[in-house]
């Protein structure tokens, strides 16, 4: 008998007796005979907790993790520092085992957390309104594109080839399913090619331009100019970014963004093999009532006390059904609680210091690699954050294998996705990387170790 079910055999018998049912099967008699399952599912035998732990340890042991190997891999997911206090809070059953806050009187903890998260996203992005979060950065970008299309009543979405390939794939899927068109812009020296953009905007039918900054190559785009270009063509400007980077980079809201999206893994969420973390989306007032997802607002209760509640729900699926702005119901709530705890601990100073350390360590890594004579920067004179593209003397697959043998997770191999970046290597350096790890990387990569 399952340890998660309190009822004893005797209790079950008595409950059936109370119901006047001869057996469990009686209760399932509403299932037509023809579809009733004859045999139990073919699943492995039950496991006691010690057996379960052993099984999990075997599986987990077949993965090499960032506790043991320094990780120079980024490309959308990063090994950042997470204070222990974060997990201590998100482990609390009151946050973990509660439902969506539809009964506000018994969910003020979740609701106030969302309200505070929304405020922090607004502060970081420089926008007026944030929702309670999205599935991830890729779907947030796709939902933003859909929002832009419905708001401009146009059908074409543009984005750069230097937007994260995962995000581009999701954008393509959503565009196909929503009957939207799209175009991809080439990059010039690692940033959006302005001449190509002007040409593609000339049709006057662009609903939105999606720009990532720092882009997939780590380069910071000239957002102001890009925003002016797309606004000049009557489209909306969607900026995909990273919350941790915004501790040090100018807020996209100040540079003309109409919608700011991105992935929030970098602030307080483990890498988790790519999920769960959360996506964010923020807009200004004109788009408020078209925003997808749930939103928390401040109001008062019957006694005039400050109270938080889900609001603007008329946009949402459970009320608007087929006319909803989106079908999204959930938010990645526990992950935004983690982000809120992280951002509260770090504060503006901590985010700034983290950003500065990343800049310094990235610069040092590139210097050390260049000194080996086997690496050179792919892009020159372009500011970047956390990630840099280096061109190597040898195929990246070979290089990464040597690094792995030496106990280091190397950077992302760019050539399969970007054939023009021959032997292109995207190296991520977070504040977690030490000088000693970086020196070892350079030594092995340079062939000295």
């Amino acid at each position, binding site marked *: 008998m399952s340890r998660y*079910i309190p009822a004893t055999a005797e209790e079950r018998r008595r409950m059936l007796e109370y119901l006047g049912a001869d057996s469990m099967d009686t209760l399932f008699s509403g299932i037509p005979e023809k579809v009733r399952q004859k045999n139990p599912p073919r699943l492995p035998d039950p496991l006691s907790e010690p057996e379960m732990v052993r099984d999990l340890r075997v599986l987990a042991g077949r993965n090499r993790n960032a506790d043991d190997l320094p990780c120079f*891999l980024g490309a959308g997911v990063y090994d950042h*520092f997470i204070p222990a206090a974060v997990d201590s809070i998100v482990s609390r059953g009151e946050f973990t085992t509660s439902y969506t806050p539809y009964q506000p009187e*018994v969910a003020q903890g979740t609701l106030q957390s969302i309200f505070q998260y929304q405020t922090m996203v607004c502060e970081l992005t420089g926008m007026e309104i944030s929702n309670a979060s999205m*599935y991830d950065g890729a779907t947030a970008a796709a939902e933003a594109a859909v929002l832009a299309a419905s708001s401009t009543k146009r059908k074409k979405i543009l984005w750069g080839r230097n937007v994260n390939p995962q995000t581009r794939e999701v954008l393509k899927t959503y565009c196909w399913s929503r009957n939207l068109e799209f175009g991809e812009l080439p990059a010039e020296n690692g940033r959006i090619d302005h001449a190509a953009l002007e040409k593609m905007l000339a049709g006057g039918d662009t609903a939105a331009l999606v720009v990532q900054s720092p882009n997939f190559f780590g380069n910071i785009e000239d957002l102001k100019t890009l925003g002016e270009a797309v606004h000049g063509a009557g489209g909306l400007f969607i900026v995909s970014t990273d919350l941790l980077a915004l501790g*040090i980079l100018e807020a996209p809201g100040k540079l003309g963004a109409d919608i700011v999206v991105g992935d929030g893994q970098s602030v307080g969420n483990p890498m988790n093999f790519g999920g769960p973390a959360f996506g964010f989306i923020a807009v200004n007032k004109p788009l408020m009532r078209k925003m997808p997802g749930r939103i928390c607002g401040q109001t008062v209760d019957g006694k005039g006390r400050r109270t938080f509640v889900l609001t603007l729900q008329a946009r949402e699926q459970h009320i608007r059904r087929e006319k909803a702005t989106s*079908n999204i119901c959930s938010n990645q709530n526990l992950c935004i609680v983690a982000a809120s705890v992280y951002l509260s601990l770090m504060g503006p100073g901590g985010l700034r210091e983290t950003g500065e350390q990343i800049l310094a360590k990235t610069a040092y890594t590139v210097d050390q690699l260049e000194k080996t004579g086997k690496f050179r920067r792919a892009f020159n004179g372009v500011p970047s954050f956390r990630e840099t593209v280096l061109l190597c003397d040898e195929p990246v697959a070979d290089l990464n294998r040597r690094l792995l043998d030496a106990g280091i997770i190397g950077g992302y191999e760019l050539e399969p996705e970007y054939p023009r970046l021959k032997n292109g290597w995207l190296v991520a350096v977070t504040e977690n990387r030490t000088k000693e790890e970086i020196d070892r990387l350079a030594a092995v990569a340079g062939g000295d170790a």
Partner: protein
Amino acid sequence: MSRPMETLFEASRAGRVGYALPPLDVPGVDCGEALQGACRENAPRLPEMAEVDVIRHFTGLSRMNYSVDEGFYPLGSCTMKYNPKINEAAARMPGFSRIHPLQPEETVQGALELMYILSDMLAEITGMDAVTLQPAAGAHGEQTGLMMIKAWHESRGDTKRTKIIVPDSAHGTNPASASVTGFDAVEVASDEEGMVDLEALRALMDDTVAGLMLTNPNTLGIFEKHILELTETVHRGGGLVYYDGANANAIMGKARPGDMGFDVLHLNLHKTFSTPHGGGGPGSGAVGVKAELEPFLPAPVIVKKGYRFGLERLKDRPRSIGRVRSFFGNFGVLVRAYTYIRTLGAAGIVEASEMAVLNANYLAKKLSSLYPLAHKGWCMHEFVLNGGPLKHETGVSSLDVAKALIDAGYHPPTVYFPLIVPEALMVEPTETESRETLDRFAEAMEAIAAKARKEGPEAFHDLPVTTPVSRPDETTAARNPILRWQFDENS
């Protein structure tokens, strides 16, 4: 329960810190120079707090939440069962939480194997041929499944199928998902028993219908007795049938959607497979398909090559609908679901559904003298009470009942859903509750009905009173939305 709390922004004091980074061990760089003018001009107004203040703040907030760990949570259609603690420990193992999704395949064999086995187990439980774990939530799973239906019709050159049929008793997500995948949602009526009206479905079925979405057991908690006729009708008309797995907790080991004629389904791992709801997420909406739809699954697909596990990517799967989320989905949630199914095994999975149904019928009978049941005969894992007569007799609405339940120490059932029952109270006790809990809940419901008859609606208007706040003014919230903390610009 504690009282309303100050916000982080009120608690913040300039100069306080809650972190420490190691001293910089490489040469520092000038931010302005390095970023060439992209540097932030004004610091974000994030809280400045010591660690102890942050912990007390969030601990205080947590105490304003009601949770499964605290008590009974009979929220219909949400399957608020107990979330085992071993699942949490599993997801936190560094071998799962500290791995990067783009690591070389040979360094993440355990993660790929876990997902491969989980997909297999879910396919076996549901009678489907293949499962993707990429969708991040139930609605996302619906969207993914409908995209595959769309792609399947397109692949056959059948482009005139623009409609998805949805019962009038369906969750709001169903029509919304149909609409976001470019379909028009068309309603089919329920008959007197709350089942899909077979004749009405036949009348709607033509060559413009792409498919039918169905929850079974349906939102009244009863099994569609004409299920085979329903799926056959759609198939004969050239459509596909989608199974919304919101209510799958009722049927594990008892009936498989794959054997009922469904072509696509999603499961909410955060309902049926015990992963916690987290106050609204993260969830996971695994999607299963029959072999005919397998080529359309989102990429990448995890495959077994001999003793190794690998990935089939988008470029190797030309008919795939594409990617619906980055990487592999909510992997941490998948670890929890895997742990749950392995812990229970076949016997435990069947036992879970049996007890969910036994508990629901037991509680339904206990409450049936107070409120008419919306179904006849046995219910499955949940049931709907009609709060209409009590309202008519006493003026006390189902919302009032819900608020009174909060004061009695319970999370209320789902209210005002499904839309086809007036003043609906939808109760799903789940298998993890003891008989004493159900008895006490029934007593609380009885006391509330007695209070309604004795004291009338006025006695309910100010409820709940035991919570940090009482009923919020939702009108003001929606008319003049305050969606972020307003800083005092003068300070």
